[in-house]
């Protein structure tokens, strides 16, 4: 019952929207109703799905790259206070820099458009992975550390058997944020890079459609992107639950 509430509310909004548009005869190039958007989605389905595929490809490639490099960087930073002192400010720098402002340079330096998008989305996604994993690595229980020392564990064993598992909940918390950021980064990058043609992503198509005042198609793109963002979040949530279900509070509260 309670689960249905947000859906019922959404449906109500859509009906209201459709009614306002119809009753006031709003032209579709100003504001299409939800039905018109649905029709645009159906009519342009192959085209839009191809665009979505391109966007998601970049998003996931960037996310995977951010996970691999982010965890590596966090492990390096955690290995010595001097390393953290020296390099963490630059991670923060990466985080606070709006990627839109870096895009023009990357576009000049890198010719491959996929690589451009990947770099920008990666920049958008990496910080939560670094900062959360680092926090996790530094929060390992001191007595467990002592225990590993007592039994002569080497650095590698301590990392694999203690530090990484212990920081998993923190890492997954970062991953959930980064999943959304990778998508946002990809979309922003696509818009700035101004990709067009058959290999362009969904954001590029959204822009094109809006230039042509095909607002229904543009909003269909928008709807697909939002849905993808939600799906990515749900995916990360599921992954998190699966990995933590045996031992972590966050995954246990549910069952």
């Amino acid at each position, binding site marked *: 019952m309670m689960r249905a509430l947000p859906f019922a509310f959404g449906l109500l909004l859509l009906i209201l929207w459709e009614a306002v548009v119809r009753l006031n005869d709003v032209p579709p190039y100003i504001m299409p109703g939800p039905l018109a958007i649905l029709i645009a989605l159906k009519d342009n389905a192959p085209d839009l799905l191809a665009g979505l595929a391109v966007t998601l490809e970049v998003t996931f490639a960037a996310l995977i790259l951010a996970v691999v490099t982010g965890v590596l960087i966090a492990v390096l930073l955690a290995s010595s206070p001097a390393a953290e002192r020296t390099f963490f400010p630059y991670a923060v720098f990466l985080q606070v820099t709006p990627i839109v402002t870096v895009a023009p340079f990357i576009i000049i330096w890198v010719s491959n458009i996929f690589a451009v998008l990947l770099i920008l989305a990666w920049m958008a996604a990496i910080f939560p992975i670094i900062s959360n994993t680092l926090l996790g690595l530094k929060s390992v229980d001191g007595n467990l550390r002592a225990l590993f020392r007592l039994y002569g564990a080497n650095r590698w064993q301590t990392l694999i*058997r203690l530090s990484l598992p212990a920081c998993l909940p923190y890492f997954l918390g970062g991953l959930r944020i980064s999943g959304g950021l990778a998508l946002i980064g990809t979309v922003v990058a696509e818009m700035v890079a101004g990709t067009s043609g058959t290999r362009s992503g969904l954001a590029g198509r959204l822009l094109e459609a809006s230039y042509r005042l095909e607002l229904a198609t543009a909003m269909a793109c928008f709807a697909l992107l939002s849905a993808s963002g939600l799906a990515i979040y749900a995916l990360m949530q599921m992954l998190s639950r699966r990995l933590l279900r045996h031992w972590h509070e966050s995954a246990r509260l549910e069952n």
Partner: protein
Amino acid sequence: MTAGVTLRGVGKTFAAGIEAVAPTDLTIAPGSFVSLVGPSGCGKSTLLRMIAGLAAPTIGTVERTDDAVGFVFQSPTLMPWATALANCALPLRLAGNADDARATEALKRVGLGGFESVYPHALSGGMQMRVSIARAIVTAPRLLLMDEPFAALDEITRFRLNDDLLALWQQNRWTVVFVTHSIREAVFLSERVVVLAPRPGRIVADVKIDLPSIRAPAMRLSHAFTDQCARVNAALSAGEDAA
């Protein structure tokens, strides 16, 4: 083979300037069972960690004749992502031994046969503590250091584990250093009870327990036992009055 411990002028002052342990001399003979008792905050845990080599003394030297140490922390200190068996087998696996038979055996010894694949969160506090004890004995250490291992347990379980620990000790003749705040527990288990006083932590009495070396459970009710408890209690009170 068992290991002895010699502390020479060992003291620890924390960064905040708190003198947790004043320079202390203590010799623990190989194969003996020694308890450390004292009020909360008197430096028992700190002393034990220095014996284990987990904390560096500010001054003085710690000598152990052997490095095979088993340690039971005051809290269970289990890896929440690993099963009881994996937790118990940790010392073996770190040494490159993938055979879990000894870990299974150790879990049985502490009464946790059948709980191998259970995760710590699904175990009671006492059961978690017993996994921690199983982990400490799984390597058959020659020096077993225990920090209030039974403090969180009910008296029934505690008595049973006390009896089991004594049986283990009599079988293997490991050296055991046992921290507790229970006088009765210390007297029941030990050949020797070292009494500490706080601020700064220091040894105020070293009581040799005058009881038969075979300690039957019924001994807890004997007069001789009560007498020994009274001796330790007197030493504790004297230490606290002096502080």
